[in-house]
């Protein structure tokens, strides 16, 4: 409730309180002769609170005169008997103090209110206050800046009609239901401005509770267009880096890839020659030729698959998030690196949980992580001659995530480097660039998972990562 500040009102209300005190005092005088004291002091206090210092003192003066006239002997006269002077003065003093207390309290409250108003107005975040029916009660300056509405254009209109774009109505309704249950809402979403353009915002909303009852909702918006843009740019840069790193890794695997493609091609040529010979015989041996041709078709498909796999790994654009079988990804990457493991005489052991659920993920990125971890292990073991070179890959299921472990018997890393192995440009390889683990970790974290490393006992390294079974956390 807002109170008019006009002097007529303030003095008028002082007079009204004092008048009321007089009336009541006269009424109860008979049964309670000193009752007027508390009534007049209350009137003075109320006058001070509502009308502030001036009206308070005015009430003191009027009260003093009336009290003297009606309640201090001699009655009905504007003077004071000598023996009544201390009593009269103590009333006067009480009245002055009471008036001061009332007005001081009032001014403190007003100051506080002014501060709160200032805070509301000057907040760098857009604030919207709506009632329980979503009608706008008040917005602040920043709100008008972000959304382009003037304050008076919004009042009493439903906020969701004004600022929620059509595609977000369901989400907004959902948020409103949460608020109605007394819960807070904290989302990153899209809202629309007066001109219809859209704005990325983070929204925090909570009920305004008075005496245990919601009377409305506060909604606080922050324009995150800039930070979102920066985030998008960062993501794009990371994707480009990941792509470059894939190209680099594929470069290292060139011999492997050539081998993978050459095998089926060699088989195709050989089968083709066999078929030609069988067909050239008199009479032609059609059954054998048919078998050879079947083999050719199968091997050609296999070569096409190899090329397809490599092309997808080299693809620049992000692939969609789909349900992926992590065991299949492990097997595919092992196929790609089989030539390398073979060449470097590394024994590969897999222990893949066949009951692993599929998880939502970017297939290419997860392949890249596996590829990075495996190549790291292979590189770490190449110089090892005094023990078996062993790559162990294990997948298992935890209650809410799948866990993948890549263990090797390589040179590992010095204990003092335990904290730096995920840092960009940290490498233990002579010609490494030190981005593999950094990129892998950012990929796994973008999937809502975790990637960490342990030192193997007695030697080697164990890289582990977990991926949540349900949709990613981000």
């Amino acid at each position: 409730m807002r109170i008019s500040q006009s002097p007529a009102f303030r003095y008028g209300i002082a007079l009204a309180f004092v008048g009321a005190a007089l009336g009541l005092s006269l009424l109860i005088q008979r049964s309670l002769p000193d009752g007027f004291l508390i009534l007049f002091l209350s009137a003075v206090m109320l006058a001070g609170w509502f009308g502030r210092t001036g009206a308070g003192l005015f009430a003191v003066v009027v009260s003093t005169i009336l009290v003297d006239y009606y309640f201090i002997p001699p009655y009905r006269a504007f003077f004071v008997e000598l023996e009544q002077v201390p009593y009269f003065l103590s009333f006067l003093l009480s009245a002055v103090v009471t008036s001061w207390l009332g007005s001081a309290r009032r001014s403190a409250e007003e100051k506080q209110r002014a501060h709160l108003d200032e805070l509301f107005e000057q907040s760098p975040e857009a604030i919207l206050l709506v009632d329980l029916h979503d009608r706008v009660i008040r917005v602040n300056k920043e709100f008008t800046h972000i959304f382009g509405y003037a304050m008076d254009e919004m009042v009493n209109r439903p906020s969701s009609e004004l600022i929620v774009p059509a595609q977000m109505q369901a989400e907004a309704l959902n948020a409103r239901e949460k608020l109605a249950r007394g819960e807070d809402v904290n989302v990153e979403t899209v809202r629309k401005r007066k001109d219809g353009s859209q704005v990325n915002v983070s929204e925090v909303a909570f009920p305004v509770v008075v005496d245990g009852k919601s009377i409305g909702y506060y909604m606080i918006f922050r324009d995150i267009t800039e930070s979102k843009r920066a985030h998008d740019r960062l993501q794009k840069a990371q994707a480009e880096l990941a792509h470059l790193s894939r190209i680099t890794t594929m470069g290292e695997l060139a011999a492997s890839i050539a081998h993978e493609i050459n095998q089926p091609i060699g088989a195709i040529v050989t089968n083709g020659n066999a078929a030609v010979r069988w067909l050239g015989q008199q009479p032609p041996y059609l059954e054998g030729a048919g078998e050879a041709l079947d083999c050719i078709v199968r091997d050609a498909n296999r070569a096409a698959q190899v090329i397809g796999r490599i092309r997808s790994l080299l693809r620049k654009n992000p692939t969609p998030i789909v349900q992926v079988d992590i065991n299949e990804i492990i097997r595919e990457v092992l196929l790609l690196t089989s030539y390398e493991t073979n060449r470097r005489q590394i024994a590969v052991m897999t222990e893949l949980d066949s009951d692993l659920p599929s998880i939502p993920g970017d297939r290419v990125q997860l392949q890249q992580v596996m590829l990075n971890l495996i190549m790291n292990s292979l590189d770490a073991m190449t110089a090892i001659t005094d023990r078996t070179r062993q790559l162990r890959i294990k997948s298992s299921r935890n209650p809410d995530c799948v866990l993948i472990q890549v263990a090797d018997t390589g040179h590992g890393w010095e204990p003092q480097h335990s904290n730096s192995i995920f840092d960009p440009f940290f490498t233990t390889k002579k010609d490494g660039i030190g981005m593999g683990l950094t990129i892998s970790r950012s990929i796994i974290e973008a999937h809502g998972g975790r990637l960490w490393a342990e030192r193997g006992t007695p030697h080697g390294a164990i890289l582990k990562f977990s991926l949540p079974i349900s949709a990613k956390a981000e």
Partner: protein
Amino acid sequence: MKPSQNCVFVVEDDPSMRIALKNLLKSVGLESELFASAQEFLEADRPDVPSCLILDVRLPGLSGLDLQRELSAANIHIPIIFITAHGDIPMSVRAMKAGAVEFLTKPFRDQDLLDAIQVALAQDRVRRQKESELAELQRRLQSLTARERELLPLVISGRSNKEIAAEIGTSEVTVKVHRGNLMRKMEAASFADLLRMAADLKIPYTKV
């Protein structure tokens, strides 16, 4: 040459390539036996006929070059034709030095492989022939008495019966009898024949 009298062994880890090789060999009437790894080949019973080995260089576990070395150490002299998906020169030099018949890079011309197989099988037939001849000579050598064996180096060194008799402290007549037995048991038609046998058996001459 009857095809069934030969056998071509194929050690190749890639199943497509293995089948393709089998088809190619079959199309020219060659029997083949397929193995996925060097170990499998080593553990298998191999038919005792002229044969050769088509061997992939890169194999899981024991590599093709390792297998070549193992076979040679075990005195198994089967002719080897190497095939590889990615020929590198140092590797092929190593293989050829260790006695490989041919070193082919996939994809190879079928005729190159088939020619190499013919060369390898011919080589193996000759080797087997020589081996069986040598085994026969060894058998004959084993049938000699100690005295006759003592006489052999002296005889092939071209000494007269008189000289030999003096050397081993017996009569000329006895030497003549021993010498006759020696020629008969070794089935030597002439002195020149005996000399060739002694050379095959690597029996050293005795210096005068």
